[in-house]
Protein backbone atom coordinates (compact mmCIF):
# COMPACT_ATOMS: atom_id res chain seq x y z
CA UNK A 1 0.00 0.00 0.00
CA UNK A 2 2.77 2.40 0.82
CA UNK A 3 4.23 1.93 -2.62
CA UNK A 4 1.04 3.18 -4.34
CA UNK A 5 1.72 6.92 -3.85
CA UNK A 6 5.26 6.37 -5.02
CA UNK A 7 4.01 4.63 -8.14
CA UNK A 8 1.56 7.45 -8.78
CA UNK A 9 4.31 10.04 -8.39
CA UNK A 10 6.49 8.06 -10.76
CA UNK A 11 3.68 7.86 -13.30
CA UNK A 12 3.04 11.61 -13.10
CA UNK A 13 6.75 12.33 -13.41
CA UNK A 14 7.15 10.16 -16.47
CA UNK A 15 4.11 11.63 -18.19
CA UNK A 16 4.81 15.27 -17.27
CA UNK A 17 5.85 17.42 -20.20
CA UNK A 18 9.39 18.68 -19.85
CA UNK A 19 9.66 22.41 -19.20
CA UNK A 20 10.86 24.55 -22.03
CA UNK A 21 14.49 25.48 -21.46
CA UNK A 22 15.01 29.10 -20.43
CA UNK A 23 16.26 31.24 -23.29
CA UNK A 24 19.33 33.42 -22.96
CA UNK A 25 18.52 36.88 -21.68
CA UNK A 26 20.48 38.65 -24.41
CA UNK A 27 18.76 36.70 -27.20
CA UNK A 28 15.38 37.40 -25.64
CA UNK A 29 16.07 41.12 -25.34
CA UNK A 30 17.24 41.28 -28.96
CA UNK A 31 14.09 39.50 -30.06
CA UNK A 32 11.94 41.91 -28.06
CA UNK A 33 13.74 44.98 -29.41
CA UNK A 34 13.45 43.74 -33.00
CA UNK A 35 9.70 43.26 -32.58
CA UNK A 36 7.31 40.65 -33.98
CA UNK A 37 7.51 39.41 -37.56
CA UNK A 38 3.83 40.20 -38.16
CA UNK A 39 1.54 43.17 -37.78
CA UNK A 40 -0.29 43.44 -34.45
CA UNK A 41 -2.73 45.63 -32.58
CA UNK A 42 -3.35 45.90 -28.87
CA UNK A 43 -4.81 47.95 -26.10
CA UNK A 44 -2.24 48.87 -23.50
CA UNK A 45 -3.06 49.82 -19.95
CA UNK A 46 -0.55 52.10 -18.26
CA UNK A 47 -0.69 52.46 -14.49
CA UNK A 48 1.34 54.90 -12.43
CA UNK A 49 1.73 54.50 -8.67
CA UNK A 50 2.61 57.74 -6.92
CA UNK A 51 3.57 57.55 -3.23
CA UNK A 52 0.65 58.37 -0.95
CA UNK A 53 -1.78 58.82 -3.84
CA UNK A 54 -4.37 56.75 -5.62
CA UNK A 55 -3.03 54.80 -8.59
CA UNK A 56 -3.76 56.40 -11.96
CA UNK A 57 -4.26 54.69 -15.30
CA UNK A 58 -4.69 55.43 -18.97
CA UNK A 59 -5.38 53.37 -22.04
CA UNK A 60 -3.36 53.42 -25.22
CA UNK A 61 -4.24 51.92 -28.57
CA UNK A 62 -1.07 50.42 -30.00
CA UNK A 63 -0.44 49.05 -33.46
CA UNK A 64 2.77 47.69 -34.89
CA UNK A 65 4.18 46.77 -38.28
CA UNK A 66 6.51 43.83 -38.91
CA UNK A 67 9.45 46.18 -39.52
CA UNK A 68 9.13 47.53 -35.99
CA UNK A 69 7.20 50.73 -36.60
CA UNK A 70 4.79 51.48 -33.78
CA UNK A 71 1.88 53.84 -33.39
CA UNK A 72 0.47 54.81 -30.02
CA UNK A 73 -2.81 56.59 -29.47
CA UNK A 74 -3.34 57.79 -25.94
CA UNK A 75 -7.05 57.75 -25.30
CA UNK A 76 -8.67 60.53 -23.33
CA UNK A 77 -11.50 60.09 -20.87
CA UNK A 78 -14.02 60.03 -23.70
CA UNK A 79 -12.01 57.24 -25.34
CA UNK A 80 -10.97 59.58 -28.14
CA UNK A 81 -7.26 59.70 -29.13
CA UNK A 82 -5.75 62.80 -27.54
CA UNK A 83 -2.08 62.20 -28.16
CA UNK A 84 -0.64 60.14 -31.01
CA UNK A 85 2.98 59.10 -31.29
CA UNK A 86 4.62 57.19 -34.11
CA UNK A 87 7.89 55.35 -33.57
CA UNK A 88 9.69 54.70 -36.83
CA UNK A 89 12.00 51.71 -36.66
CA UNK A 90 14.60 53.08 -39.05
CA UNK A 91 15.04 56.13 -36.84
CA UNK A 92 15.28 54.07 -33.69
CA UNK A 93 18.51 52.62 -32.42
CA UNK A 94 19.61 49.16 -33.47
CA UNK A 95 18.54 46.30 -31.16
CA UNK A 96 22.20 45.50 -30.47
CA UNK A 97 22.75 49.03 -29.22
CA UNK A 98 19.72 48.84 -26.96
CA UNK A 99 20.92 45.53 -25.56
CA UNK A 100 24.39 46.95 -24.92
CA UNK A 101 22.87 49.83 -22.97
CA UNK A 102 20.77 47.51 -20.83
CA UNK A 103 23.83 45.37 -20.13
CA UNK A 104 25.77 48.47 -19.04
CA UNK A 105 23.25 49.22 -16.30
CA UNK A 106 21.65 45.93 -15.35
CA UNK A 107 22.12 42.27 -14.58
CA UNK A 108 19.58 40.35 -16.64
CA UNK A 109 17.94 37.14 -15.42
CA UNK A 110 15.25 35.09 -17.16
CA UNK A 111 12.46 33.08 -15.57
CA UNK A 112 9.07 31.71 -16.60
CA UNK A 113 6.71 34.62 -16.81
CA UNK A 114 3.23 33.16 -16.74
CA UNK A 115 0.43 34.26 -19.06
CA UNK A 116 -0.21 37.85 -20.17
CA UNK A 117 -3.13 38.62 -22.48
CA UNK A 118 -3.58 34.88 -23.03
CA UNK A 119 0.00 34.40 -24.20
CA UNK A 120 2.84 32.54 -22.52
CA UNK A 121 5.73 34.77 -21.62
CA UNK A 122 9.27 34.82 -20.37
CA UNK A 123 10.08 37.24 -17.59
CA UNK A 124 13.33 39.19 -17.57
CA UNK A 125 14.41 40.95 -14.39
CA UNK A 126 16.73 43.91 -14.76
CA UNK A 127 18.69 44.62 -11.58
CA UNK A 128 21.14 47.43 -11.05
CA UNK A 129 24.68 46.33 -10.25
CA UNK A 130 23.81 47.19 -6.64
CA UNK A 131 21.15 44.46 -6.68
CA UNK A 132 18.15 46.81 -6.78
CA UNK A 133 15.39 45.53 -9.04
CA UNK A 134 14.68 48.35 -11.49
CA UNK A 135 12.56 46.76 -14.18
CA UNK A 136 10.78 43.52 -15.06
CA UNK A 137 9.82 42.65 -18.62
CA UNK A 138 7.39 40.00 -19.84
CA UNK A 139 8.12 38.90 -23.40
CA UNK A 140 5.86 36.74 -25.58
CA UNK A 141 7.57 33.38 -26.06
CA UNK A 142 6.54 33.03 -29.70
CA UNK A 143 6.80 36.48 -31.21
CA UNK A 144 9.10 38.35 -28.84
CA UNK A 145 6.54 41.09 -28.32
CA UNK A 146 6.96 43.00 -25.06
CA UNK A 147 3.69 42.20 -23.27
CA UNK A 148 4.23 43.82 -19.91
CA UNK A 149 6.77 46.01 -18.17
CA UNK A 150 7.07 47.11 -14.58
CA UNK A 151 9.41 49.78 -13.23
CA UNK A 152 10.37 49.98 -9.57
CA UNK A 153 11.79 52.62 -7.25
CA UNK A 154 14.99 52.20 -5.29
CA UNK A 155 12.98 51.01 -2.27
CA UNK A 156 11.42 48.24 -4.36
CA UNK A 157 7.96 49.81 -4.61
CA UNK A 158 6.16 49.62 -7.94
CA UNK A 159 6.29 52.90 -9.82
CA UNK A 160 4.79 52.05 -13.18
CA UNK A 161 3.16 49.15 -14.98
CA UNK A 162 2.50 48.91 -18.72
CA UNK A 163 0.57 45.90 -19.88
CA UNK A 164 -1.13 44.75 -23.08
CA UNK A 165 -4.68 43.76 -22.26
CA UNK A 166 -6.15 43.01 -25.67
CA UNK A 167 -3.86 41.67 -28.32
CA UNK A 168 -4.53 40.71 -31.92
CA UNK A 169 -1.56 39.07 -33.59
CA UNK A 170 -1.18 38.64 -36.47
CA UNK A 171 -3.28 41.61 -37.47
CA UNK A 172 -3.64 43.64 -40.63
CA UNK A 173 -2.29 47.12 -39.94
CA UNK A 174 -2.66 49.96 -42.42
CA UNK A 175 0.85 51.28 -43.23
CA UNK A 176 -0.75 54.64 -44.04
CA UNK A 177 -1.22 55.18 -40.31
CA UNK A 178 2.53 55.60 -40.01
CA UNK A 179 2.94 58.26 -42.70
CA UNK A 180 2.99 62.04 -42.46
CA UNK A 181 3.49 62.01 -38.75
CA UNK A 182 3.87 65.21 -36.85
CA UNK A 183 7.54 65.84 -36.05
CA UNK A 184 8.21 65.49 -32.37
CA UNK A 185 11.06 66.78 -30.30
CA UNK A 186 14.56 65.98 -31.54
CA UNK A 187 15.30 64.47 -28.17
CA UNK A 188 14.10 60.93 -27.58
CA UNK A 189 11.52 60.50 -24.82
CA UNK A 190 9.80 57.42 -23.41
CA UNK A 191 6.36 56.56 -24.74
CA UNK A 192 3.71 59.02 -23.57
CA UNK A 193 6.18 61.76 -22.62
CA UNK A 194 6.26 65.06 -24.47
CA UNK A 195 8.28 68.23 -24.10
CA UNK A 196 6.36 70.69 -21.93
CA UNK A 197 8.99 73.32 -21.18
CA UNK A 198 12.11 74.33 -23.00
CA UNK A 199 14.77 76.98 -22.67
CA UNK A 200 18.42 77.32 -23.65
CA UNK A 201 19.73 75.11 -20.89
CA UNK A 202 17.01 72.60 -20.19
CA UNK A 203 14.02 70.72 -21.53
CA UNK A 204 11.37 69.19 -19.34
CA UNK A 205 9.30 66.20 -20.43
CA UNK A 206 6.10 64.97 -18.84
CA UNK A 207 3.30 62.50 -19.29
CA UNK A 208 0.97 64.45 -17.03
CA UNK A 209 1.96 62.62 -13.83
CA UNK A 210 5.68 62.04 -14.07
CA UNK A 211 8.35 64.43 -15.31
CA UNK A 212 12.07 64.61 -15.92
CA UNK A 213 14.43 67.29 -17.13
CA UNK A 214 17.42 67.22 -19.44
CA UNK A 215 19.62 70.14 -18.41
CA UNK A 216 23.09 71.63 -18.86
CA UNK A 217 24.96 72.15 -15.59
CA UNK A 218 27.78 74.17 -17.09
CA UNK A 219 29.95 71.14 -17.85
CA UNK A 220 27.67 68.28 -18.83
CA UNK A 221 24.14 67.44 -19.77
CA UNK A 222 22.24 65.71 -16.97
CA UNK A 223 18.91 63.95 -16.67
CA UNK A 224 16.97 64.23 -13.43
CA UNK A 225 13.48 63.14 -12.45
CA UNK A 226 11.13 60.21 -12.93
CA UNK A 227 13.07 58.15 -15.42
CA UNK A 228 14.97 54.86 -15.24
CA UNK A 229 18.71 54.80 -15.81
CA UNK A 230 18.61 53.21 -19.27
CA UNK A 231 15.96 55.62 -20.52
CA UNK A 232 17.90 58.54 -19.04
CA UNK A 233 21.01 57.57 -20.99
CA UNK A 234 19.04 57.18 -24.17
CA UNK A 235 17.49 60.62 -23.70
CA UNK A 236 20.92 62.07 -22.99
CA UNK A 237 22.51 60.51 -26.07
CA UNK A 238 19.71 61.71 -28.32
CA UNK A 239 20.03 65.14 -26.75
CA UNK A 240 23.69 65.16 -27.74
CA UNK A 241 22.69 64.19 -31.25
CA UNK A 242 20.11 66.96 -31.35
CA UNK A 243 22.76 69.46 -30.37
Amino acid sequence: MTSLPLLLLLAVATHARPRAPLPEADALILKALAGPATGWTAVERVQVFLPGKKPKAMKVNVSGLPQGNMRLEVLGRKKVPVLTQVRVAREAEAPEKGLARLNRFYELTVSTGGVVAKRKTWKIELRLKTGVLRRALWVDRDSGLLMKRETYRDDGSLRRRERLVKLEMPATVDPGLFLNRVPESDVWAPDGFISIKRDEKSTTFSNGLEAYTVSWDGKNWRVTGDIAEDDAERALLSNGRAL
Partner: protein
Amino acid sequence: MTMDENEKLAKEAMKSLFTPAPADLKASLKRMARAKSAKPSLWDGLLESLSGGAWAYGAGAAFAAAAVAVVLVKAVPERRETPVTVAPAQAPAPQALAELWSDDDGGDHD
Protein backbone atom coordinates in the same frame (compact mmCIF):
# COMPACT_ATOMS: atom_id res chain seq x y z
CA MET B 1 -40.53 13.92 -141.03
CA THR B 2 -37.21 12.99 -142.52
CA MET B 3 -34.10 11.98 -140.63
CA ASP B 4 -32.40 15.27 -141.57
CA GLU B 5 -35.24 17.31 -140.15
CA ASN B 6 -35.17 15.33 -136.90
CA GLU B 7 -31.45 15.85 -136.52
CA LYS B 8 -31.87 19.59 -137.14
CA LEU B 9 -34.62 19.89 -134.51
CA ALA B 10 -32.55 17.95 -131.96
CA LYS B 11 -29.57 20.27 -132.48
CA GLU B 12 -31.74 23.36 -131.99
CA ALA B 13 -33.22 21.93 -128.81
CA MET B 14 -29.73 21.26 -127.47
CA LYS B 15 -28.67 24.81 -128.34
CA SER B 16 -31.63 26.24 -126.44
CA LEU B 17 -30.60 24.33 -123.29
CA PHE B 18 -27.16 25.99 -122.99
CA THR B 19 -26.79 29.78 -122.77
CA PRO B 20 -23.61 31.04 -124.36
CA ALA B 21 -20.74 32.04 -121.98
CA PRO B 22 -20.16 35.82 -121.81
CA ALA B 23 -17.13 37.16 -123.47
CA ASP B 24 -15.72 38.79 -120.24
CA LEU B 25 -16.26 35.69 -118.09
CA LYS B 26 -13.49 36.53 -115.57
CA ALA B 27 -14.73 40.06 -114.95
CA SER B 28 -18.33 38.97 -114.58
CA LEU B 29 -17.31 36.28 -112.06
CA LYS B 30 -15.48 38.93 -109.98
CA ARG B 31 -18.56 41.16 -110.07
CA MET B 32 -20.75 38.30 -108.91
CA ALA B 33 -18.36 37.40 -106.08
CA ARG B 34 -18.18 41.03 -104.90
CA ALA B 35 -21.95 41.30 -104.93
CA LYS B 36 -22.34 38.09 -102.93
CA SER B 37 -19.63 38.86 -100.38
CA ALA B 38 -20.57 40.49 -97.06
CA LYS B 39 -19.76 44.06 -96.06
CA PRO B 40 -16.06 44.85 -95.95
CA SER B 41 -14.43 44.29 -92.53
CA LEU B 42 -13.75 47.18 -90.19
CA TRP B 43 -10.05 46.62 -90.54
CA ASP B 44 -10.29 46.88 -94.35
CA GLY B 45 -12.44 49.95 -93.96
CA LEU B 46 -9.92 51.51 -91.61
CA LEU B 47 -7.04 50.73 -93.96
CA GLU B 48 -8.93 52.07 -96.91
CA SER B 49 -9.91 55.19 -95.03
CA LEU B 50 -6.27 55.84 -94.29
CA SER B 51 -5.51 55.98 -97.98
CA GLY B 52 -3.37 52.89 -97.93
CA GLY B 53 -0.02 54.73 -97.54
CA ALA B 54 2.70 53.33 -95.27
CA TRP B 55 2.63 56.40 -93.02
CA ALA B 56 -1.10 56.04 -92.74
CA TYR B 57 -0.80 52.50 -91.40
CA GLY B 58 1.50 53.87 -88.67
CA ALA B 59 -0.93 56.61 -87.82
CA GLY B 60 -3.74 54.11 -87.66
CA ALA B 61 -1.76 51.86 -85.37
CA ALA B 62 -0.90 54.80 -83.13
CA PHE B 63 -4.52 55.83 -83.03
CA ALA B 64 -5.58 52.31 -82.11
CA ALA B 65 -2.88 52.06 -79.41
CA ALA B 66 -3.98 55.37 -77.92
CA ALA B 67 -7.57 54.17 -77.86
CA VAL B 68 -6.54 50.95 -76.09
CA ALA B 69 -4.47 52.94 -73.59
CA VAL B 70 -7.42 55.19 -72.78
CA VAL B 71 -9.64 52.17 -72.23
CA LEU B 72 -7.06 50.55 -69.94
CA VAL B 73 -6.51 53.69 -67.89
CA LYS B 74 -10.24 54.01 -67.39
CA ALA B 75 -10.56 50.36 -66.46
CA VAL B 76 -7.76 50.27 -63.81
CA PRO B 77 -8.82 51.91 -60.56
CA GLU B 78 -6.88 54.98 -59.60
CA ARG B 79 -4.13 54.39 -57.03
CA ARG B 80 -4.40 56.70 -54.08
CA GLU B 81 -2.31 57.06 -51.00
CA THR B 82 -4.04 55.83 -47.92
CA PRO B 83 -5.59 58.74 -46.13
CA VAL B 84 -3.61 59.57 -43.05
CA THR B 85 -5.25 60.37 -39.81
CA VAL B 86 -2.19 60.92 -37.73
CA ALA B 87 -1.92 62.94 -34.67
CA PRO B 88 -3.29 66.24 -33.69
CA ALA B 89 -0.98 68.90 -35.09
CA GLN B 90 -0.35 70.27 -31.63
CA ALA B 91 0.58 68.22 -28.60
CA PRO B 92 -1.86 68.64 -25.75
CA ALA B 93 -1.10 71.32 -23.21
CA PRO B 94 0.63 70.18 -19.99
CA GLN B 95 -2.60 70.60 -18.00
CA ALA B 96 -4.44 68.48 -20.55
CA LEU B 97 -1.89 65.70 -20.10
CA ALA B 98 -2.94 65.24 -16.49
CA GLU B 99 -6.52 64.81 -17.61
CA LEU B 100 -5.53 61.76 -19.62
CA TRP B 101 -5.22 59.82 -16.38
CA SER B 102 -8.07 58.47 -14.36
CA ASP B 103 -8.29 56.83 -10.94
CA ASP B 104 -7.46 53.16 -10.90
CA ASP B 105 -7.63 50.26 -8.47
CA GLY B 106 -3.99 49.43 -9.18
CA GLY B 107 -4.81 45.80 -9.94
CA ASP B 108 -2.79 43.72 -12.36
CA HIS B 109 -5.63 42.35 -14.46
CA ASP B 110 -7.14 42.77 -17.91
